[in-house]
């Protein structure tokens, strides 16, 4: 038995795709929660400018999550 029996290209592609998608999407979702929550709190405290910045960060995080999921499913379906 040799290492050549394993399709390393396909396996390594699966490994890096899992790492990028798994860690990337969950981190982006965390940023979305941070941005959204802080935006609500800052708006409540009467700090609209900072609230808008955090709101934008949250929206970007959410957009990354949605984009990553859509991209992944499209690649899989192809």
């Amino acid at each position, binding site marked *: 038995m040799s290492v050549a*029996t394993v399709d390393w290209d396909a*396996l390594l592609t*699966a490994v890096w795709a899992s790492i990028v998608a798994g860690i990337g999407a969950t981190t982006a*979702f965390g*940023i979305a929660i941070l941005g959204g929550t802080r935006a609500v709190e800052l708006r409540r405290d009467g700090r609209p400018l900072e609230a808008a910045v955090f709101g934008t960060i949250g929206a970007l995080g959410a957009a990354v999550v949605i984009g990553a999921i859509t991209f992944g499913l499209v690649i899989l379906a192809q």
Partner: protein
Amino acid sequence: MRGELLTVIIVVGTALAFDFTNGFHDTANVVATSISTRAMPPRLAVGYASILNFVGAFISLQVAATVASDVVDPEAITPLIVFAGLIGAIAWNLITWYFGLPSSSSHALIGGVVGAMLVAQGPDSIFFETGIVGKVMVPALVAPILAFLVAGVSILLLYRIVGGLRPGPASGGFRGGQIISGGLLALAHGTNDAQKTMGVIALALVAYGSLPASDPSPPTWVVVSAATAIALGTYVGGWRIIRTMGSRIHKMDSAQGFAAQGAGAAVILASTHGGFPLSTTQTISGAVIGSGAAKRVSAVRWGVAGNIVMAWILTLPAAAGFGAVTYGITRLFGTGAAGPIVVSALILAGSAALFARRAQQGASVSAAEA
């Protein structure tokens, strides 16, 4: 020819029954984290997972191609071998269900077919190095470790990012996120596991001459019926195993549940694209343990995790043994449909006895608690 057609019909029925038991036994793991963190009520979580299992089965055919052509020689397969492999896998699934042990339906299926093939056609008919090792065993080792690491790193990053927030809104956000991550995990399960059944039915159709061995892509009716069977199995549910996966490994918060489901879905979907027939149970177990260990190593109940590892180790050889024995019993009745009919009746009777015993034990526990 009529006897052979009857055998193929029994094989297709058995494969769909296996798919149903796969949903029943395996997919429950997918919803366990959502239920244990209260992201979704149990009935809703199971219904949601069953719908997404159905949808997932239509996304890809890469794994079906691997099962149909890369594990055993499709030129040497016969409907009886496929039947015996399936019965071996179903028997192993029922036994692990009865004892409440998470197992791998995928590896049971592959093990069953390999065991039956080994007895029927000899070792040359099995693609041991490129198929069993390269496509099944190495990915089986890599996937749970990868899921463990991805979930562990994810949860550490998430705690860093949201650590300064009040717990209420953050938990609520992650519970919402679990609806997405749990859905993706169910979709991933549907696409990887339903395809194994499609691959096995394709093998039977190759043996019957309905599909060419050079291109055993499953026809649409196979895809639709496999998707339906796994979705129905999921809906009926495996509550005993939900309990094992969801809360006995460690108590999870919603961020951990989200990280575990996200990691599991990412690993399964990426591996499906590579055509690797993974075990969703192994992968989600790795992710659940990773999300717990990253927070606090002592929070993980390692005894339960150890039981799961034992089931991983046992599944392939045990199902191969059951597949080989089933082939031997089936051949006692010749090569026609008589063997599959008798063995199907035996496995149905055995299943009914196990279900009755389990129901009786459940009733005794309820009576004692009352």
